[in-house]
């Protein structure tokens, strides 16, 4: 189908790409100039040790992706088939919380259960005969990565499942499709379209894992490239090495992610106007109990470490913490920064999603252009650019001309927004593309475009997925710190920042209390986002 070439959606996408390009490009420029003066580090980085690190990085990331995404298919399916499952809404909200937890908080939560001194140490030790050695090593890394990514993958897959029109569910139950048939014929095709993107996302998150890998990995045999990059920038200050390692990380990730894309065909399903209200999905009792079991197991796995975190948080002197001016200030700063980055992330993602769709439509059956690829998978690769690289690069770039303190909050917002963008894209795209498929011709015919289309046609359909995207983006921004390592600024003293600094000065109980606060804050923000995303009652 050929549509207008002067589509404002494409312009918006180009603008978003340009903004992302400037953020990342500026950082590389800054470090590149610095590296130019002392380039030998770039070659010195490549030795046999690096080869081992790269291999381990990819291996753990692949395993983590598989273990996160495969069960997520079952969990998402179970949740989608039981819209009335008790507490479903709460489960979905809880699933946004892990992303907001700083890695060390999650690691400690997980160890409370499966560590040497964990709740299950006795039972696990009995099973393995002897004392339980804990989950240090690859197993610990995998457990932690699944804890972070299973809920993420589940929510994103559920988003894809929700684009299946109600008619199809009715048809399925009318035709008497059992669980297996409806999975094969309805659910799997819907999820399969979204799967490569989601798997790619999880993979990238695991590639860049840092604290989890070191803390739970048991020793430097478990090291990721991210650690080497961090070391190059923070300890050795060797920009040449940092840049070449970052480029290596991007290249390796690109190879794997592109292979993933090839595995799953990016098929756009036929989408019809959903004229019926979402109808009841008939599931047989056996299937019902199976699904309930799946949901409960996932909930226990994700909820367990959270409960442990809450339990140790409750031991803290919460009343005193809540009364402290610094805690209140940090909470306020966190909320402001996270909301701003989430808003920016949603705007960037929506622009990219709309542009991709417009480009895909206008090319018809031809090859996707480079621009389209960039609005699609390409932009996602920002995830494997370590925030410390972006922060340091911009610091180097602007230190001569601007007061770096003034820049710090904007850096935090911009970097967090860009890092959250790939998640937001995954949340928005299925609903957007399904709606666009239905509306494209009629909009073209009636001349509904640009702002009018966004306001009248796309916005009402996208409210809910945008709310999901917003919640995720906010959770991610709440937890992140990496970018300001060099900047240092009073304007960005966020909750996780306060948490780590209390932890760094023996105040472990305070830190546990702040972790609880952070989790509750994330939950509250998610609930608000959900409420905003609800369709207006008529």
């Amino acid at each position, binding site marked *: *189908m050929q*549509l207008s070439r002067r589509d404002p959606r494409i312009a918006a996408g180009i603008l978003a790409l340009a903004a992302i390009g400037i953020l990342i490009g500026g950082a590389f420029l800054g470090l590149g100039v610095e590296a130019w003066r002392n380039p030998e580090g770039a070659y010195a980085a490549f030795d046999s040790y690096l080869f081992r690190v790269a291999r381990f990085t990819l291996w753990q990331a692949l395993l983590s992706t598989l273990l996160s995404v495969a069960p997520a298919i079952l969990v998402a399916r179970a949740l989608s088939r039981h819209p009335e499952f008790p507490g479903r809404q709460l489960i979905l909200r809880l699933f946004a919380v892990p992303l907001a937890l700083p890695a060390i908080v999650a690691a400690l939560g997980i160890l409370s259960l499966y560590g040497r001194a964990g709740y299950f140490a006795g039972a696990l030790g009995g099973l393995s005969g002897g004392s339980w050695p804990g989950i240090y090593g690859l197993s610990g890394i995998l457990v932690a990565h699944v804890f972070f990514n299973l809920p993420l993958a589940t929510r994103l897959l559920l988003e894809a499942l929700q684009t299946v029109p109600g008619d199809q569910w009715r048809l399925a139950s009318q035709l008497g499709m059992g669980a297996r048939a409806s999975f094969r014929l309805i659910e799997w095709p819907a999820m399969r379209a979204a799967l490569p993107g989601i798997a790619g996302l999880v993979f990238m998150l695991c590639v860049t894992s840092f604290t989890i890998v070191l803390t739970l990995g048991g020793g430097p045999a478990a090291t990721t490239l991210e650690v080497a990059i961090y070391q190059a920038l923070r300890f050795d200050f060797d920009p040449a090495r940092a840049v070449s390692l970052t480029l290596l990380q991007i290249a390796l990730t690109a190879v794997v992610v592109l292979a993933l894309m090839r595995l799953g065909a990016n098929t756009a399903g036929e989408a019809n106007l*959903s004229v019926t*209200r979402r109808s009841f999905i008939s599931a047989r009792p056996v299937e019902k109990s199976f699904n309930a079991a799946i949901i409960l197991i996932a909930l226990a796995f994700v909820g367990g470490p959270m409960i442990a975190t809450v339990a140790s948080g409750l031991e803290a002197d919460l009343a005193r913490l809540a009364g402290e001016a610094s805690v209140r200030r940090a909470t306020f700063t966190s909320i402001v920064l996270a909301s701003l980055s989430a808003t920016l992330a949603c705007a960037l993602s929506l622009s990219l999603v709309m542009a991709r769709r417009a480009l895909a439509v206008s090319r018809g*059956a031809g090859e996707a252009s480079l621009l389209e690829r960039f609005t699609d998978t390409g932009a996602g690769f920002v995830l494997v650019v370590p925030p410390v690289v972006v922060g340091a690069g911009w610091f180097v770039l602007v230190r001569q001309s601007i007061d770096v303190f003034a820049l710090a909050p904007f850096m935090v917002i911009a970097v967090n927004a860009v890092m959250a963008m790939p998640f937001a894209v995954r949340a928005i795209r299925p609903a957007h593309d399904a709606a666009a498929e239905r509306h494209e011709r009629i909009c*073209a*015919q009636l*001349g509904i475009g640009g702002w009018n289309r966004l306001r009248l046609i796309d916005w009402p*359909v996208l409210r809910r997925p945008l709310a999901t995207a917003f919640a995720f983006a906010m959770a991610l921004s709440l937890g992140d710190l990496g970018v300001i390592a060099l900047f240092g600024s009073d304007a960005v003293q966020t909750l996780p920042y306060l948490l780590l600094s209390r932890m760094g000065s023996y105040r472990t109980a305070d830190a546990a209390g702040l972790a609880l606060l952070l989790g509750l804050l994330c939950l509250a923000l998610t609930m608000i986002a959900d409420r905003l995303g609800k369709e207006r009652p008529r």
Partner: protein
Amino acid sequence: MTTTGEAVRLDRVVFSYADTMVRFDVTFDEGKVTAIMGPSGAGKSTLLNLVAGFEQPREGRILVGGKDVTGSDPSSRPVSMVFQENNLFGHLDVAKNVGLGRSPALRLTAADRSDVDDALARVGLGGMANRLPRELSGGERQRVALARVLVRDRPVLLLDEPFASLGPALRDDMLELLMSVQAERGMTVLFVTHQPEDARKVAENMVFVEAGTISANGKTTDFFGDSGPEAFRRYIGSERG
């Protein structure tokens, strides 16, 4: 608002998509209803899409009322189109769906609103202005689409099997409605259908599309007469199966 039809001409149009290639060279008379029939996949919908501007020809021109519209936006062409499905926005009520035919920003004057009400009354949906599409039957939804055509008031109407999913009685009602609207407005109508009776009932002219090109073109009565084109007779036969 008295539309007068304009002639539609596809002037040596060549279009290709993936493995398929179509060629059209045909004129549709102004103010007439032309039925477009042919086997599935022959290119009937492509023909409409070319006229509507959803597809761009590789070669040739498309003229409406003698004016070259090749390359212009779908919304700027003097054309309305009704699809088999997805004519309405599920989240907007009936009045808004119709109102979009007047203003894509949905900024409607009092006069526009009264036109919308008139059009709804005309298609037999008076009093349903505030319903959502999901609260309507299939036939009612197509009536909304037709109301929007009235409000839009363009000289050419393209119908892509709009009544295919309706029952016989309902389809007859819709055809009646279509004919009376066409009589009032004198639009040029291109009507893709699989039902020979539909074509007989409403179309004065007829074209037969086969393997990406128009293989026959003439009066509907001639098509159904004894001297009708061989391919068409085979098609009818196979349709009746």
